[in-house]
């Protein structure tokens, strides 16, 4: 059993956060430049979310199974959660198949610098929106440089 008990609870957390990112010009502007459309397929609990940056505004679409995605990322909800804290080594996750990426990977890698500011936003978002129980940063000790 993962950290999130139900799809509904995970949806509230992750979709709310994606919406916050989509409304943050510092990040959203770069996502819109990329024209990227990503489908996230989560397990334990199950949830599908599309982030569609093909238009003038970044759209967050939960349960969307019809939009044609450029890239599809499959992972557990726990890996996704840790990713947004900046705690997931992407190379490691891809190598060990903790994340499976289908589509043009270089285009995803290019976006990583753009979304970097969101790592600091995630714990703040959790605390500010009644999801403090999911804020794992206090227990996390980053590797020493």
């Amino acid at each position: 059993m993962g950290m999130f008990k139900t799809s509904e609870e995970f949806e509230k957390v992750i979709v709310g956060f994606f919406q916050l990112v989509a409304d943050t010009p510092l990040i959203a502007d770069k996502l819109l430049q990329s024209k990227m459309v990503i489908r996230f397929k989560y397990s334990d609990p199950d949830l599908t979310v599309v982030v569609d940056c093909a238009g003038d505004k970044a759209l967050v679409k939960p349960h969307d199974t019809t939009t044609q995605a450029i890239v599809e990322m499959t992972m557990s909800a726990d890996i996704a959660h840790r990713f947004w804290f900046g705690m997931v080594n992407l190379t490691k996750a891809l190598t060990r198949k903790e994340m499976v990426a289908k589509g043009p990977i270089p285009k995803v890698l290019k976006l990583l610098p753009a979304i970097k500011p969101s790592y600091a936003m995630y714990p703040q978002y959790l605390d500010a929106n009644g999801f403090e129980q999911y804020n794992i940063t206090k227990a996390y000790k980053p590797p020493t440089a």
Partner: protein
Amino acid sequence: MLPEFFEFYNPTKVVYEAGVATDLKPELDLIGITKYFIVSDHIINDLGLVQKVADGLVDAGFEVTGKYLDVAQDARLKDVKKCADIVKASGAEGIISIGGGSVIDTAKAVNILFSVGGDLVDDYSGAHTLTKPLNPHVVIPTTAGTGSEVTMIAVIYDEENKEKLAFPDKFLLPNLAVLDPEMTISLPPKMTAATGMDALTHAVEAYVGPQASPISDAFAVGAIELIMKNLVTATRTGDDVDARGSMLIASTMAGISFTHSMCGCIHGMAHATGGLYRVPHGIANGIFLPFGLEYNFEEIKEKLARLAPVMGEDTSGLSEDEAARLAIAAIRKLSKQLNELGALPIRLRDVGVPEDGLVAIAEGAINDGTSFYNPREMDEEELLPYIQNAY
């Protein structure tokens, strides 16, 4: 300092011997199939190298079910589809690729369609999307640069969408890499120098990169030492079998290193320059190598300093900064020697890059997938002066 995590996976058997490409029976018997299809290009075929290998196979009791020689300078999607159909129809059980990076990468991608079918882009774009081993693939490199004989990636050019597609997957690692220096003897000096600088760039970027591990470092250091000692000789005296052999081994070691720890901004700048101005990959890497190291200097100087003695420089009494700069100077010295042989351009202006195109190179490098693996965070404005210096 040990990395938090690393993985080392290298199932490719490597054999080395002058002439071994025509005497592969012991290795092929262990693989256990008898019908091979050859993938190569017309240049290699015209040099007689394809026939040489094919004759060796037939003499040893293997069947050559066919040959595909139309691989272009860049591995192309349309070749992959066409070749895969021919391989399937031929009744082959495995593939032997004979050539440089384009031939080997084409054969890797062909092997996906040949072994498991499907559509290359729709079904296999991404990272590690294959779920089972492919048919046997034996690689005989004819250049000493790409390292593709031991890497888990195939890069294929999609002409329709004008983009290079990368297919990283463990199942793309060939079964056997055949390092035969006689297969590289006919490589002209310019190709020898350019591919050699490509191998050097693989090894150096892998060594100083953030994904490096003690194991990838060992291969990188071994490669760098061999290249610094042998590239000039292999370029100047093409029939020197020892120098050719050393460069082949170095290229393979560099390939093993960078397939684990990846490459950074130097490859990013080279990819952009190749895409915009058709500058060959090895030449672009050779031009950018010292400038990219200078861009990353503060982040990599500790490891760079350790490379200076490997490159034959005396660092006794020098500070870390001084030793690191000596390593960069050693690379410049090597490039200058190759340049004096008429084999390697060392300035962007000498390879048809316009001065007003440098901003576009910086932009392209920032947007390249390799920027994720660069030791220093990539910034277009900060990178541009180093590209201008390379002009």
